[in-house]
């Protein structure tokens, strides 16, 4: 192996210069949540399980007709998850509270993408097909997607679904927060607009967060003292309040730390300006050159000297 002397010093110089700047690149991780984004407050004490939100979602997003009609209440007998043909589903839970007639009181839970403040899916996406938009929605650009499904691995709520039965052009399917609709003046998400009881309140995230806190304060004893989505995984655009503990309603217990923080900190710490690979290249080059020299001196000194 023959290392060209000048070439080697060029590379080493670049390595040294770049290695000086790691500190500048490895800045502390900061949330990239948009400042004035929209959000939705879901008040589970209001939801009556009518599934109008599912129906509206299906209509405004042009999704295929369901096998069982939206008017059929027997659908609620099974627990469902959002899937590639429906962005949102309502499930019924009986956490154990009885009404005055000794009947179990149902609590209905609407599920959809939570539109995290710092979405794990957007951090994970290899091509940046998923992005957190200024208006708060986590937006999917099918034109960039390659179908690696790392977003689905990353999502702590297990929301993104996939068109597994499309052989060539499958899409990741999830709630869009009605991105186009809410981008317009006075536009509302389909589900929030149709909800007959305003179980879903749409507004700026800090507005609905204040509203949630106000409801907790104004109705002592009615709600559990927890706004789900205020702090979970660094906060979500969709937040929930409930009269029943969230653990009993199928909500996952999640840490407050934004999901992408650890991986992004490691990645940026190591690879800002590619300082570590360049440094490693320089070090290995140095070792290689030293060993090369030793070899040359030891073995065929004359032959190399001519070259």
């Amino acid at each position, binding site marked *: 192996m023959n290392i060209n002397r000048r070439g080697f010093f060029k590379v080493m110089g670049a390595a040294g210069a770049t290695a000086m700047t790691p500190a500048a690149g490895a800045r502390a991780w900061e949330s990239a949540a948009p400042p004035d984004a929209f959000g939705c407050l879901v008040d589970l004490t209001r939801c009556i399980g009518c599934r109008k939100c599912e129906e509206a979602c299906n209509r405004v997003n042009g999704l295929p007709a369901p096998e069982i009609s939206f008017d059929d209440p027997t659908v609620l007998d099974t627990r469902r998850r959002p899937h590639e043909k429906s962005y949102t589903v309502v499930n019924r839970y009986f956490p154990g509270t009885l009404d005055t007639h000794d009947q179990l009181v149902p609590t209905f839970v609407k599920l959809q993408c939570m539109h995290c403040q710092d979405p794990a899916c957007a951090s994970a996406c290899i091509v940046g097909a998923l992005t957190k938009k200024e208006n708060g929605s986590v937006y999917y650009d099918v034109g960039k997607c390659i179908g690696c499904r790392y977003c689905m691995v990353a999502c702590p709520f297990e929301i993104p679904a996939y068109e597994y039965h499309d052989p060539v052009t499958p899409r990741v399917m999830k709630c869009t927060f009605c991105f186009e609709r809410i981008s317009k003046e006075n536009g509302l998400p389909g589900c929030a607009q149709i909800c007959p009881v305003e179980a879903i309140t749409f*507004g700026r995230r800090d507005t609905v967060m204040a509203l949630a806190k106000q409801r907790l304060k104004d109705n002592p004893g009615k709600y559990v003292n927890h706004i789900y989505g205020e702090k979970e995984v660094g906060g979500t655009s969709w937040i929930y309040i409930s009269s029943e503990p969230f653990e009993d309603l199928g909500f996952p217990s999640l840490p407050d730390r934004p999901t992408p923080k650890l991986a992004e900190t490691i990645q940026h710490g190591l690879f800002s300006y590619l300082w570590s690979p360049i440094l490693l290249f320089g070090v290995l080059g140095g070792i290689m050159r030293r060993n090369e020299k030793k070899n040359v001196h030891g073995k065929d000194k004359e032959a190399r000297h001519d070259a």
Partner: protein
Amino acid sequence: MIRKIMVWAGVVMLGACLCSAEVWKAPDQEKAKERAKELVPFVDAVKDDCKVLRRVCLLDKGIDIKDVETTYFHLESPIIKAREDHYGPVRFAHKRHAALIGDCTACHHYRPKDESMSETTRCSACHQEAFKADNPQRLGLKAAFHQQCMACHKQEAKGPVNCTGCHLKNVPDHKELVKLPDDADPFQVTAECRRCHDAQAEDMLTTAHWLWKGPSPFTVKHRKDIQHGKGTTALNNY
């Protein structure tokens, strides 16, 4: 075969009845419709009394059921229709509810802060558009209706709580749905109706409209087995 012709004939008769109904209009319904179309100025500030004080206040002023002017409302509004329009209006018997409950504050829970305004206002004075940015805690009109009616019906275990218990579903425009050739014969028409309304057609076969006999409020003692009539002895002359 004969059955099918008769079903078709029934449909024609029903249509004829509906056409003739257009001539006469129920005056209270027309009034309710007009009233539902009105938009009233928004009341921003309300007097936030507790329920007991509010009741005392109404008692002091001597406001009770005798003051109920409107007996019948259509619960709908352009505010609601602007966003979603899937159901017909709810026909709300105002006076009847007032009489049953005997407490105006069950619905008229707040009054406008402006003392010059009427003690009781209509729902849409305070509840209008949903999700107003400057007033996010105020319910929109649709949610105010639903929360008020359904909560009370549940609480009292009385009155409907499902959608079609109060609303008629809007009939979709059948111009788009019905697919018939220009010179359709009666059988094709019946078959086309039954394409979507098969269950209703089956149901119809068990009713007096088809059997020409059955329990009726107009038979003696509501008897079912009529010995005489179109089903049995009378001449079917139509």
